[in-house]
């Protein structure tokens, strides 16, 4: 049985239970506004996701950093950096960067679209599979910041004037925005919606 069906609302911030009534608009413990479900969850998530998807294009096409070595500047995109690492024979680190900056953002975008679609339409995935996917997306989101931190450290460390220097490129800003927007999208999605449109009381023991 859902708490909602029992006329109970759970505070979104401190998880205290409240009886559903006009008198209780705010949590009695922490003062947060009470909502049965996160307000406009689907619309907000779609909006953030769409913005992230659009920025995903410049993030991958524009150079995220350029390495100047003895006067020769070489701008590199995200994929370019991964390929360079592979050529240098550093496969483990290449795969870490590849997973964090290419696989994870794409997976997040596709995964959230799939979750939204499954909540709005009929779905084939079971709620349990979808909640696992949601938790994975929520947990992995921050790891995409990896490339941004690497750039920050390299820019600070490799500062030898004309001899060698590293500069961040415009792609990095776009990529950072993609990460922030997908993280916000994951937070605004309400996982309870996954269980709302499935009759799954039989699903638990």
């Amino acid at each position, binding site marked *: *049985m*859902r*708490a*909602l069906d*029992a*006329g*109970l609302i*759970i505070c979104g911030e*401190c*998880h*205290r*239970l409240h009886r559903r009534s006009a008198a209780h608009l705010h949590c009695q*413990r*922490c*003062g947060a506004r009470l909502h049965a479900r996160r307000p406009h969850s689907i619309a907000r998530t779609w909006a953030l996701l769409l913005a992230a998807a659009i920025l995903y294009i410049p993030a991958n096409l524009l150079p995220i950093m350029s390495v100047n070595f003895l006067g020769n500047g070489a701008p590199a995109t995200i994929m370019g950096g991964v390929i360079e*690492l592979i050529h240098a024979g*550093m496969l483990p*680190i290449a795969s*870490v*960067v590849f997973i964090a900056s290419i696989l994870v953002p794409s997976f997040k975008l596709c995964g959230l679209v799939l979750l939204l679609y499954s909540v709005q339409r009929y779905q084939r995935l079971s*709620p*349990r599979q979808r*909640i696992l996917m949601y938790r994975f997306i*929520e947990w992995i989101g*921050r*790891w995409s*910041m*990896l*490339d*941004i*931190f*690497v*750039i*920050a*450290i*390299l*820019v*600070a*460390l*490799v*500062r*030898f004037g004309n*001899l*060698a220097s590293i500069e*961040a490129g415009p792609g*990095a*800003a776009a990529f*950072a925005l993609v990460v*922030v927007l997908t*993280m916000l999208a994951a*937070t605004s999605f309400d*996982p*309870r919606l*996954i*269980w*709302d449109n499935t009759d*799954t009381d039989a*699903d*638990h*023991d």
Partner: protein
Amino acid sequence: MPSSPAPSTTDLQDVPLSSLLACHECDLLLRHVDLPLEHKACCPRCGYELQTHRAHMSRRALALVLTALLLYIPANFLPIMQLDLLGQRSEDTVWSAVLALYQSEMVFIAVLVFLCSMAIPLLKLLCQLWVLLAITLRRGQRPALQVYRLYHHLREWGMLEVYLMGILVAIVKLADLADLHLGAGMACFIALLLAQVWLEVSMSPHQVWDALEDAHARA
């Protein structure tokens, strides 16, 4: 430990709210049980970890918060590594990385890196310190409730562990380009990260909310 089954009675109006519990992630209604120490309750339907009962929560957490705060300054301002290239030397600290980005006119990224690696981790620790002091000293619970709400909003935006991974990737990238030495800042940074992760594990949210509410009701 599995949680108790959902209440099946239809007249829930008479059941006190304190004996009920709802899963935050799937809204399943459950009956509340008092957990023994170091046990956790998980939602039987979606597997979400509902509650964990930690022993000596506030004392242990307070010690860890103070440790983390002591480590914060050396971790952020001592050099993490040094790079020697043809007689020139450059140093990297968490703060100098922010400055370098700012000076190369990538203001947006500089601000973002500053927030995720320095400002928010510090703010989180200060929030936790405030809340734990309010619990220990039994005063100021009302503002502490708001501070703890703020902490939960900041939570996933502090990214120390991702930053450490970034340091490792940078080390591998630079290792054969030039002479690289690790500095004292690296050790402090790892120690800060460990203290912070341990703190997050031991500071169980439902115990904090309950402690703040109890004191709040008594006052």
